[in-house]
Structure formats: structure tokens, C-alpha cells
């Protein structure tokens, strides 16, 4: 393949500049509001830079952003709901994924297909029955109820993704461990699990994020302000009268920045694990 000639280099760079503008301008439009003290409610005039530059909005977002909860209080609820779902789906999912990767049992193919189907099910498809069932059990409005909902959403994907990771670990390594006197459990714990750990971490991250940025279902289930999560708080401000958009922007930034940093740090890695897990049957 030849190197691109100079005029093409210029043309390509121009295209990239335009695409970068398409990506960055909307981001900037949101971000600049977080530094503007003059905004009350919806912005009323067009600005590219903040009118009155301030960091006080972040202070407010930290102390008492919405639903009379502190930022850390909201974050705590988010972590309980999505973290709980993450732990449940990874711990229960790991053993199931291992079984799918290593053993031949009746219904294995059907099970795999069902898992893929579960991954692709729209969240709402489980919401109607879970709403009714959790209501009947009396746990609908608690954070535990949310944990169950988010687990139902994330678990099929976790199993599906980790199965590929376990399958990528050569069976010969385990056989070698058996010769050294290991049983199924110790071989799994000492040999296979450490090798598959990176993929499990990715599955955990995805499971966590599924709950972390979910708000609509949560608003349907939760009705006490004690149990409001961060994403719920932000979405609640969008429709509310009197909610200020600079506060909303600041909260969105606080919510997004950690995730963005994690994604940027792990980008190559995430792509390899999420996308091309080519495994032969």
C-alpha cells in the first residue's frame, strides 16, 4: 500500500477537522453551561463562552444537587443499585459461563441461543412483568428491587461475553493442572480464572454501566427520594420547572468524566474484548 500523497493528506485532515467539530461542538455546548453563573432555568441567549465564569455551580452540584440529596448520597445509591447488579451477574454468570465453555450437556446450543436472545431483548420487555412481580412481592420501590431489574438486564450479556473468554483459555492448561493433582475447582480457580480475568472485568464494567446510566425504568419503580440514583436525579431535572441547566450540565459532567477516563484508558483493550472474541466451536 502506498503512502498517501500530500494533497490527499490535506484533504483527509480537513475531513477529520469537520468530523471532530461534529463530535466536539455539541459537547462544548453542554460543558460551557456548567461554568456559567448567569443561567437560571433554561439558557435565554446564545453563548459560546460562559457569560459569568464560575466554579460555584460544581460546588452546588456537590452539596445539594437535587432531590435534597448530596452528590455523594446519589452516587451511593447508584453504586448500590448498579454495583449490586454487577456483582450478582458476574458472580453467578462466571460459573454459568464456565459450564457453557467447558462441558457438553443437553440443551447447550439452545441455551447459548437463549443467552444471545436475552442480550438483545429490549429492556422494556422485562419491565412490565418485573414491575408487576416486584409489586406483588413488595420490594418494587427499594434499591434491592432495582438490583434485581438491572441484573435481569445485564446477566445474559455477562454470561455470553465471559463464555468466549473461558473458551479462549486452552483446555490443555487445565489438563496439565489435573495431572498435577488439581480437581475441577482448583484448576478453575488457579488456572482458568486468572487468565480470563480481563474479560470478566470488561463484562463487569458493562454490567455496571447498564445500571449507572439507566433512569427511566428506575423512575417507574422507585418513588421515595431516599432511593434516587444519580442518573435519576439528572433526568428528573430535565422535566422539572425551575431546574437550572448549568446545574444539570455540571452534574452530567461529574457523571460522565470518570466513565470517559476509564474508556479512554482501556479503549484498545475494551474493543478487543467486546468485539472480536473469535472462538471456534
Amino acid at each position, binding site marked *: 500500500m502506498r503512502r498517501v500523497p500530500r494533497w490527499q493528506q490535506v484533504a483527509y485532515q480537513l475531513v477529520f477537522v469537520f468530523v471532530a467539530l461534529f463530535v466536539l461542538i455539541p459537547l462544548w455546548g453542554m460543558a460551557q453551561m456548567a461554568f456559567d453563573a448567569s443561567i437560571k432555568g433554561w439558557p435565554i441567549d*446564545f453563548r459560546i463562552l460562559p457569560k459569568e465564569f464560575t466554579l460555584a455551580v460544581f460546588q452546588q452540584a456537590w452539596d445539594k444537587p437535587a432531590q435534597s440529596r448530596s452528590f455523594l448520597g446519589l452516587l451511593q445509591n447508584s453504586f448500590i443499585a448498579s454495583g449490586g447488579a454487577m456483582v450478582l451477574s458476574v458472580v453467578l454468570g462466571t460459573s454459568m459461563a464456565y459450564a457453557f465453555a467447558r462441558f457438553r*450437556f443437553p440443551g447447550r446450543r439452545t441455551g447459548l441461543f437463549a443467552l444471545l*436472545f436475552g442480550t438483545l431483548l429490549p429492556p*422494556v*420487555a422485562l419491565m*412490565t412483568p418485573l414491575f408487576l412481580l416486584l409489586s406483588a412481592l413488595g420490594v418494587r420501590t427499594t434499591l434491592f428491587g432495582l438490583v434485581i431489574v438491572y441484573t435481569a438486564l445485564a446477566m445474559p450479556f455477562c454470561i455470553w461475553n465471559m463464555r468466549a473468554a473461558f473458551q479462549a483459555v486452552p483446555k490443555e492448561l487445565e489438563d496439565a493442572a489435573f495431572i498435577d493433582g488439581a480437581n475441577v475447582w482448583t484448576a478453575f480457580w488457579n488456572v482458568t480464572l486468572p487468565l480470563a480475568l480481563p474479560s470478566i472485568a470488561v463484562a463487569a464494567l458493562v454490567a455496571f454501566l447498564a445500571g449507572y446510566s439507566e433512569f427511566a425504568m428506575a423512575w417507574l419503580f422507585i418513588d421515595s427520594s431516599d432511593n434516587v440514583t444519580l*442518573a435519576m436525579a439528572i433526568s428528573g431535572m*430535565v422535566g422539572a420547572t425551575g431546574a437550572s441547566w448549568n446545574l444539570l450540565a455540571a452534574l452530567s459532567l461529574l457523571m460522565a468524566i470518570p466513565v470517559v477516563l476509564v474508556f479512554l484508558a482501556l479503549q484498545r483493550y475494551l474493543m478487543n474484548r467486546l468485539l*472480536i472474541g473469535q472462538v471456534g466451536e
Partner: protein
Amino acid sequence: MNSRRLLKLLGIIAITLLALFLRLRAVELLPIDYDEDDYLRAAQQFATAIQAGDWGAFTQLNYRTEHPPLTKIVNGLAIAPLPPAPEIPDLSTSAPPASSLPEPHWTVARLMEAAQSVVQVLILAFLNPLAALFLAINTWHIKYTSQVMLETLPSLTSLSTVAAYVKSNGKWNRWLLLSAIALGLTAASKYTYCIVAVAILVHWLWRQPRAGSQPFAKLKPLLIWGVIALVFFFAADPYLWPDPFNRLRDSLLYHTSYAQSEHVREAGYPMWQPLVWLAGSVPWHPGVFLISVDVLVSLLAFAGLQRFWQKQNVYALWFVVGLGFLLLWPTKWPQYILTLSVPVMLAAAEGFQSLIGEPLRDWLARVRANGIQIRRGRFSWQETRRALPWLAPGLATLLLITVFPLVFQTAVALTDLSTISLRDGLTGGVWRATWLGITGQQPPVHVGIGVDGRISVTVEVRDRGEVHLVPIAQSSLLAKEVHFAGLEWFTQIFSGIGADILVFDVMWTVLSILSQAAMGIGIALMLNKRGIRFRGMWQAIFILPWAIPEFVGILIWLHIFEPMNGWLALALGTPILWRQDSLLALCVLLIAALWLGWPFMMLAATAGLKMIPPEVYDAAAVDGAGRLDQFRFITWPLLLPLLGPALIIRAIFAFNQFYIFYVMSPPWPLFTFSTLSFLLLNSNTRLGGQYAFSAVVNVFTVIVLLALLLWFNRRTRIAEGVTYA
């Protein structure tokens, strides 16, 4: 005659009889529709002239001059032998339907139409019996060819035009003569059906092989064909004779100004409304059509489009030209889709063959060769025993939180559970109602869904041997109880309710995935050229939307597009009322989805490009392949299989997209099924608290997804090789 041909002939007869029966029923039962009074009045005038022997009047008669007179003349001939009746008064086009029409003239004119309609089904049955079956049961076709409208004759003649053209093979013979005559008659009955002429022209210039070296040799039969069509058009339209040019111009110009009129604009249909009409059944006149499975037929047509196009015959061009015209033309009345009935039914026949017919035939052939074999020996009992402890905890959890809910949901979908009956439903009412219903101890209640989404439930109450229909809302005791509704909801969905959402959802999926893939693959190709500068920096910027939580990304776009105070509205200094304009709203949603989704496609394409060994390009360069050839013959074919499953899975995500619609709140019916289901569930909205309906939508979605996935799985085996996010 061998038995196969005999069977086919019997099939054709059966289909024709079915078409006849359904149309006779419609003639009998359909109420008077808009415009029927006008066209019957036109026929009456011709009948009077015929009875008086006043043939000269034909050059002056043509009530509703914007449409050519041939259909009106044919109907006039049909009612001429009847005793005369007082002429129907002259009312404006937009007047409501007449309250009564003279009999037996009205019925006789309708029967005349229905007879021509059955002939059309018969002709199609000789070309493709399956397509003819679909046409025979198509509710739109039944409705508009069993009323005194102008659709039946041009439907018949336009099909004849194309069928005779195909038979002629592009050479000058009697078939081409027949095609030209049919085209002339089509033009003399209704102008819109002349799109078949455009399709034939394109096909002729594009597809027919060149005859010899002379370029004009190919065009000669075409010219003769056109001239004969014109002659027959003129001959069959006596109204044109005294003043051809002005009268033709007036009748054509009427339609362009009508398309801009207030009457058409008030209807407020989106640009893609013809697709909505095509996708569903006639939503009015319950009980008239007996069979309304048009949703299934249109899904088959969608699945068969690719094969239909690959055959590249003139019918596919008919479909493309006609659809393009209907999408662009501002008037969106439902009867216009009859111009497309034939190609859609042919596409559905292709879809049926590829989805059901051929797999079934293969399976039968296999069974006949080997007998039914149960696959076994793929697992060992020893391993199964060892797998059990690993499987048990996860399996139990999944059964509890996903499988059981789905079963429960299916039960809910068979009832009428709503906010009012929630208490009963949660304490076992759902199971009770389902059990009673399935065991036949309780007859199903009737559910009705209004066009605006409002729901009414009526129950049959027996009182002294008489059956009354009582709305359950009238009795608080009845309303607080869950009832069995059986498959009533599903028949409602199949009879056209929700076709607008189905069309939007599919359109949204296709457009958003295409735009994201085009941008993602395009940028990935540019970025991965050898020697591009700042590659790392650009990539880090481009993946930002992928890294940002979806919810925040959508908020960013709400901030830009909010109609009154959004960034864009403030920058332009004027509100942007995109929620009032369905096309604009679609664009806004697509832009937001593109921003959110294209980085993933870029990353996927980059990963795919890395798997193509650079040596193949060197080899191609040695062979003298240019850049375009390299892309066309190396990059694209090698990349597509790698991206295929990613595209499918992202498409399914797009089909299920919900958060964009929730935050941006576009107007009804610019929704996906997920959004509809959520709105029905959320008791804070106008439609909310309809748990049963919400469950029905979910069950429908689950079935559609399952079918799609099974189909894809057969073609690409995504469930085995590759994993995705």
C-alpha cells in the same frame, strides 16, 4: 395434463373464488365512502346518454374532470339497462360521504368493479399463485375495488401492461401491442397508474439487450409502443376530443394544486404514510374483511425485497418507481397504494419462498431421504453431571428474573389487566383469568383500541337468553376484576393498529444503522490509510461519544435541539418547531443517533481492517488494480463478513431504542415499540396503566426479534463464532 399442472389450476380456481367471495361480501357490507356519490353520479350521466342514444354527449360528459372518464363510462354501461333514478346532487370533493345512494344502481356499479377486480386476481394467479392469494386477501385491495371508485380498472390494465410487456421480451409482437393498448386504457382510467410506463421505459433502456449494432434498433419497438399507447389513450378518453390540449392540461394541473391545498395539508400525514397504509390492514370497517393478515404479508414483502430486486425484473422497477412517487407526492390518500399492490404481493411471495417455502421443502426432502433423525451423542452424561453445580445458581437466577417474568408477561397479554384491576391481578387474578379462559370456562372479553390509542373493554353478559355487550367501565365490580381477553389484542394489532409504529420503527432502524455504518466505515478507512498524521489524536476525539454514558449524550442533543431554548434555536434567534413536522423530527432523531452510534462502527471497522493482511493489497497492486478496484474487490468483501454480525446486533439495538425517544419526546407515532410499551406501562402518562396492552406490545416485539434472530442465525451463525457488545 400432469397432476402438478392440474393442482396449480385447481389452486388458481380456489384463489379466484376466494377473491370473488371476499369482494362480494365487501360489496354487500361496506358503507358508502367518500367520493362514491361523485363517481356514481358520473356513471349515471353516461347511462342517461346511452339510454338516449346521445353518443355525442360523450365528448362533453366527464363529471369530476380531473380524472379521465374510462371507469365512469364502464360503470355507466353497467347501470344503463336499469330503470333511471334521480341524479345524485353535485357536492364539493371534500363533502362527507352521502347518506344514501340510488339502488340497485349503486350495488350494480360496485359489482361491476368487483368483477374486474377478480379478473385482476386471476391474471396475477397465472403469473404467481402465491402473490395472487396475498392480493385476494389484501384488505385495501378488497375495499377500494369493491366500491364505486376509480381504482379497479387501472389496477387491472396496469398489471396487463406489465405482464404483456414481460411476455413480449422487448420485441415487436402481439404481446407488445397488447401492452401498449393496456397502457392507453390505464391512462384513460387514472393517471397515477401510469408509473408502470416509467418502470417499463427504465427497464427497456437499462436491461434489454442491444439489438445489433444500431442504437436506434433498440428504440424502434419502444417508439411504436408509445405511439399506440397514446392513440388508445386518446380514443378511450372522448372528453379530450373537442379540445385535447387544454382539457388534458387542466386535468393534470388540478392534481398539483390539489396536492398543495389546505384539505390535503390538514390530514397531516408524514411523508412515509404510504408505507404505513401498505404495512397494515384497513383500520376501519371491523368484521367486513374476515381475513386481515396484511401485517404478516408486508413483513414477508420486506424480507423478500432483496430477492425480488435481485431478479431485477420490471416488477421490481415498478415497485421502486411507484414507491418513490408515493413518497414524494404530497397527497397521501390510502387508495393510492393500490398502484403498488401487485409488486408488493410479488415481493411477499418471494419472502414466503425464502423464509418458509424453501426451508420446508429442503426439510421434507431430507426427511424423505433419511427419515426423521434425532440428533444425539453430542453430550455425555458424565459431563452433564459435572456441569450441573456450575450451572445451577445462575440458571436458577435467570429462571426467576427473566424466564418467569416472560411467562408471566405472556399470561398478562392474554388478559385485560390495567390500573383499575391491578389489585386483583397482583393477587393471582392474572393466573385465574388465564386459566379460566384457556380451559374454556370464561369467554374472552372484547378489547377495542381506538386510532388515538384509547382502549375500551366490553364483556358479554347473558340476560334472559339475550346477549348484551356491556363496557366494563360501567360497572366498578367488573372493572376491578381481571378478565380473559384471549388473542383479541393480537387480532387488533394485526388488523392495522400499530402499523404506523411498525413502519417508523423499521424505517428508523434501517436509516440509523445505514448512516452510522457509512460514517463509521468511511472514517475508519480514511484514518487507517498509511501515513495519515495525528491518527491517535483524531481517534481519541472520535470515540468520545462512545465513551460518554448514553443518557448524557442524549441530554447534549436535547440541549441543542430543544425547540424554544435550545442552543440552535437561540443561535438562529427563532424557535425550531421540529416536533410539529414529522420529517424534521426524524432528521433530528437520526442526527442524535448518528452522533451516539458512529464511533462504535468506526472502532469495529478499524478492528476489521487490521485483520486484512497487507499482502493482498501488494498482490493487487502488482496486478494493476486501482484504488477503487482495491476497495471494491478486496477491502469491502473482506470487511463485510467481519462487520455483518455487528451490524445486525446494532440494528436490533436501534430497533429497541428507547432513551432517545424518551428524552427528545418526538410526536406520535414517531416511536419504537419499546417506547410505546413504556408509555403504556407508565401510569403518569395519558395512555398509562394499560399493563395488558403493554405486555402485548412486548410479546409482539419478542416474537419479531426471535424470528429475526433465528433467520439471521441460519444465515450467519452469529450465535456460534463471534461475541459482541
